[in-house]
């Protein structure tokens, strides 16, 4: 069973609330769900859609063909009717649309009328549609009550009741007016968690002891801030909206200096303003975690869409030379784990650590039976009292074997914590001599890098162990490449190699992935950008040049359908 429902309409029509309720419903009923969103940079009007895919098996990507189209306006019928399968159906609002074709099947519902006839108001029409969809899929409607209850709780019990009624009316409308059914077998498990990338990164921060988050709003990164803000009071986190991105990163550094785990988040244009601050983190050796949620550039680009085009900018952003780690999770669960690892390494090595996400990862919801919390770690690497006070002396940049100087908290003890953006001596004071400079570069850069390299996990291989065709990917394309690999593997010698820990670039000691690359007859780098940035990085780091690039840079993610199409010619 593999059903996709696409809800189309204008911004402001509430397609998101319908989609979210639907996803929750199936997830709680024990189905796996994958949702993705496509929306414009405007508040009202235009055209957006929300897609929900449902299956009893785990899902990690979207399809182009759909089974049900819920069209809230005529525009949605025009744009999407051709992707509805023959067996599918278009449900639309009778007041705003017409479907003047015979295939696929269609069902007109006077949404507002049904709502008012059920003693609701016109604005409850969305719940008529929601009920109708559940009717079409032959679901037990009871499960939706809780969800409506949650969504409308702060509007009062009466409205909750009305909305439940209205959903029921939509459900009944379908039972009475249509024979079309999409059979969905009853699920066997107890229900899943539903999580998108933004939520995952904010959970990752929360569970890593992040106590301060400063940011300036920027789509598609704002979700992280919103999610953390919602947890602020409960978990004692200060979330501060800065006057600009420069302030955001400098505030995070000030807070980190002050002794708390600190983070900032933004998208490419905002990150551009942060690079001086990143370099400051490098020089002062102040731990900080930075989430960069990519969108298509350059400049303002396509503000609400997706792209993987800031990889090289993140790797080399900031003047001068200093170590950093860069992670690009491929799924919400990876996002939790890697955000946790970013916080850990940022503090352990006193460096900036990056989470590279994008609009696609940020907004897509994945379903999970359970999230792994056992492998999450929390170690407080800071030097606090009573240890700190006991020290006979303290130097912020003490030179030692590891390059990692003790990280004390100012004000905790009588020892002073002196940090400096100029080159400095062990005490943190300005110097200009060559010998101290050399010593500090050695400490700050070389020694730490040597150790950092050992922290990085190998890329993940999925599929054939000795593949002829090797698909390379990184970050958010994980899910779709995985699904495609799994589809193709039975008939082809194919595998995928996903890089989620990008920098320092994974060593191939433990896992000789370079050998796999050498042995494959086709190595195909799949990237949601125009430049093939990962392929460049791979060559810079290993000398290996891939045989083929598959790039997509129209602001839309790869879907299983289109990636399969793209790969067709290489399958021989």
């Amino acid at each position, binding site marked *: 069973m593999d059903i996709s429902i696409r809800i189309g309409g204008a911004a402001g029509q509430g397609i998101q609330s319908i989609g979210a309720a639907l996803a929750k419903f199936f997830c709680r009923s024990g189905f796996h769900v994958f949702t993705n969103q496509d929306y414009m940079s405007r508040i009202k009007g235009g055209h957006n859609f929300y897609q929900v895919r449902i299956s009893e098996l785990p899902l990690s990507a979207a399809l182009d063909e759909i089974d049900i189209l819920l069209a809230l306006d005529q525009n949605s019928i025009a744009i999407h009717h051709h992707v509805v399968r023959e067996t599918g159906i278009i449900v639309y609002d009778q007041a705003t649309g017409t479907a003047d074709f015979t295939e696929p099947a269609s069902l007109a519902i006077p949404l507002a009328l049904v709502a008012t006839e059920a003693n609701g108001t016109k604005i409850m029409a969305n719940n008529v549609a929601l009920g109708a969809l559940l009717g079409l899929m032959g679901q037990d409607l009871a499960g939706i009550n809780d969800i409506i209850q949650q969504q409308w709780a702060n509007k009062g019990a009466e409205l909750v009741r009305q909305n439940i009624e209205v959903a029921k009316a939509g459900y009944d409308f379908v039972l009475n007016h249509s024979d079309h059914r999409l059979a969905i077998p009853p699920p066997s498990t107890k229900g899943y968690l539903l999580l998108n990338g933004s939520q995952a990164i904010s959970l990752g921060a929360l569970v890593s002891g992040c*106590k301060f988050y400063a940011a300036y709003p920027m789509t598609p990164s704002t979700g992280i801030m919103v999610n953390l803000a919602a947890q602020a009071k409960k978990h*004692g986190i200060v979330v501060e909206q800065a006057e600009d991105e420069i302030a955001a990163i400098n505030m995070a550094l000030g807070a980190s200096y*002050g*002794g708390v785990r600190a983070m900032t988040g933004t998208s490419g244009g905002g990150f551009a303003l942060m690079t001086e601050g990143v370099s400051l983190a490098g020089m002062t050796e102040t731990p900080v975690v930075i989430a960069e949620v990519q969108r298509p550039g350059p400049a303002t680009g396509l503000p609400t869409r997706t792209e993987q085009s800031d990889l090289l900018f993140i790797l080399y952003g900031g003047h001068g030379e200093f170590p950093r780690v860069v992670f690009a999770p491929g799924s919400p669960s990876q996002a939790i784990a890697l955000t946790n690892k970013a916080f850990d390494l940022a503090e352990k090595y006193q460096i900036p650590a990056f989470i590279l996400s994008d609009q696609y990862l940020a907004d897509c919801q994945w379903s999970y039976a359970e999230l792994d919390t056992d492998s999450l770690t929390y170690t407080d690497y800071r030097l606090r009292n009573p240890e700190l006070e006991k020290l006979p002396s303290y130097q912020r940049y003490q030179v030692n074997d590891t390059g990692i100087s003790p990280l004390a908290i100012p*004000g905790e003890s009588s020892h002073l914590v002196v940090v*400096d953006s100029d080159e400095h001596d062990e005490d943190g004071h300005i110097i200009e001599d060559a010998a101290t400079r050399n010593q500090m570069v050695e400490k700050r850069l070389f020694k730490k890098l040597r150790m950092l390299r050992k922290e990085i996990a190998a890329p993940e291989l999925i599929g054939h162990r000795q593949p002829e065709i090797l698909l390379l990917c990184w970050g958010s394309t994980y899910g779709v490449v995985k699904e495609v690999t799994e589809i193709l593997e039975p008939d082809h010698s194919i595998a995928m190699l996903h890089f989620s820990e990008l920098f320092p670039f994974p060593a191939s000691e433990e896992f000789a992935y370079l050998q796999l690359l050498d042995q494959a007859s086709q190595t195909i780098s799949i990237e949601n950008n125009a430049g093939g940035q990962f392929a460049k990085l791979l060559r810079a780091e290993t000398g290996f040049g891939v045989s083929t690039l598959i790039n997509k840079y129209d602001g839309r993610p790869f879907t299983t359908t289109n990636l399969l199409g793209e790969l067709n010619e290489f399958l021989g």
Partner: protein
Amino acid sequence: MNSWDEIYKGQRPAWCPGCGNFAILNTLKKVLLEEGIKPHQFTIVSGIGQAAKLPHYTKCNTFNGLHGRTLPVASGLRFANNQMLVLAVAGDGDCYGEGGNHLLHAIRRNMNIKLFVHNNQVYGLTKGQASPTTTTPTPTKTQPFGALSEPLNPLALAISLNCSFVARGFAGASGLPHLNKLMKAAIHHKGFAFIDILQNCVSFNKVNTFHWYKERVYQLEGSYDPRDRAAAFTRCQEWGDRIPTGIFYQCQRPVFEEQIEILNKTPLTKQIFDFEKAKQEVNGFS
């Protein structure tokens, strides 16, 4: 050696002999001693410039960050530790040029930060370009047509933003006892306290010299009422033959960090992280 110099002894200053910065440094040390503030009990956050080197020349916790970015770092530090006394030290280029936006919003926030701007009306460290406070139409090597912009009046700006403490000091010998008082008042003020300090630059400002300032500077009369915002706005525009110093404006406004409940009992940096509770959130989510 004076006891203040001993207790707060720092690196040897790289300033020019005769620079007004020395007087500001020494006054600050005296104030710290007189207020009984120990070196580890305060942090100086600074940017880049001659003024911004100051923390190295005393003994304290120091965050000597980027040019123009003093205030965001100071704010972040206060969020992390609202029991720390945070002084922000900047030059006029640092604070009114590169860092202008942060000044606006730091004043609006009204966090408990003490901002001392060494206003020498010139970019000292980079060798004499016009700063936002440079008198028109001073020609410089980078202003071929002269400095043509209206000089920024930092006090008027601060008052317009309803800054809760706005003062001007003078770094000449005659002004130091007064500067001492201003610094103490700033430290005792609840909220954001801002002192613009007139400081001579012997190397690059040949217009606003020590003597130029000395001849003009005087103290606001005892009867002056710093609670009157309109009067403060008018008075702070006096500039020319006579230049007033003192507290121009002071008001009580909610202090930003005091309004954040979770900071009320324990500073963030001392709050114990409950890893297990946080982990529960992960699977409790949805």
